[in-house]
């Protein structure tokens, strides 16, 4: 298991960060010169045609179709199976290298842990971890400062109405 994981990460690394993912066009869609609805249409991509995804910018993906590079709406694409594995980067590696916790109360319970159905049904309380969770919590001011550092600005946006049944 561990070996396979390392192999996957090595391959992902070799393929480069998140570029070069294979995807299929779900429905006929316009290949645009720029990531805007009113940008010039280069040509139509028929359903089920194959493209290479280079990057995402909000609702748009930059793709390569043959020798032409352009932009399509992200939701008109479906990534090929296994495509996202190539995104694995140093972040993934470091996350999986972090050892299981000692400080947040991993010591007491017996039995196998994990998020399978069986394990969830028989889960025992872990009050030490709940205390640790309390220590990491953010108050309003810290959250606002953090948002300002990232230049995030609160907006007024209405909730979307669901489908009419």
């Amino acid at each position, binding site marked *: 298991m561990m070996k396979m994981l390392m192999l996957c990460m090595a391959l992902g690394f070799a393929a480069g960060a998140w570029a070069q993912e294979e995807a299929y066009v779900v429905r006929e869609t316009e290949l645009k010169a720029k990531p805007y609805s009113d940008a010039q249409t280069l040509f139509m991509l028929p359903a089920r045609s194959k493209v290479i995804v280079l990057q*995402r910018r909000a609702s748009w993906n930059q793709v390569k179709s043959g020798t032409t590079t352009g932009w399509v709406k992200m939701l008109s694409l479906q990534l090929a199976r296994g495509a996202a594995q190539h995104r694995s980067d140093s972040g993934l590696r470091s996350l999986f290298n972090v050892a299981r916790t000692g400080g947040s109360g991993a010591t007491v319970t017996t039995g196998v842990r994990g998020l399978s159905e069986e394990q969830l049904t028989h889960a025992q309380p872990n009050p030490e971890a709940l205390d640790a969770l309390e220590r*990491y*919590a953010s108050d309003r001011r810290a959250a606002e400062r953090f948002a300002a550092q990232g230049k995030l600005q609160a907006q007024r946006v209405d909730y979307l109405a669901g489908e009419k049944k």
Partner: protein
Amino acid sequence: MKAIILVVALGLSVPAQAFDFGNIDLEKAVKTMQKIKHAKEDVSEPQEIELGSGIASSLLGAAPLLDHPELQRYVNRVGRWIALQSERPDLPWHFGVLDDADINAFAAPGGYVFITKGLLARMNSEAELAGVLAHEISHVLRKHHLQALKKGARRELMADLAGEAIKSKGGDERLRKLVSAGTELYARGLDKEDEFESDRMGVVLAARAGYDPYGLPAVLQTLQSINPTDSNLALMFKTHPGFDKRLELLGPLMSPALDDWERQPDLNQRFATVIGNRK
């Protein structure tokens, strides 16, 4: 009702016991009526938090917290900032990264939200993290887990909780049973409509918080490309509607409605820095 009439009729033929039997049944009937009345009431916010903290504790018993304090604090700030844009900004919100390779995220009543490191490792930006946290926050806002418990096998206990027959402190056995039922919900899943509703609300909350709202769809698209036989996705597949269906429903709802906000930052650099930092 028929049973009461029968008991009263029987009681009449044995006068000495008539009063007792009738009295007990009357008491029972009144209690049932009260339970029906309470079933329509909501549990109070302190009770919701009490139940949620019990469920969170159980979930942490199944999968512990990742020992990465900087990352834990980072996820709490992203989550709290989003929650501040919601209709319940002042709940005691708690966010946690679970040390588990499974690909999933969870919410519990009262403001508890968890994401596995398996899911976090497949994300590319803070906007994607925000999208997933906002989906989970929406489950809390709409009280989806409380609704599911009210409809389930433990509905009578939920009525007791609403009627304050359960005293929260001191380890009431009935509260323990509710916590257990709440934890089992993670294995069974919520109503599909609740998931779709949280998708719709999640993308809006992300936009309100100033993020590129396409983070959640981008994560769904990434997950769509993982081999469905991957065991880390087994629980997600069992408990959620398919990624294809979720994306199909979100697409037309988001555009053009959220077009004005799609140029907002995704903060992929800040995300990469925190994820990449060893503690």
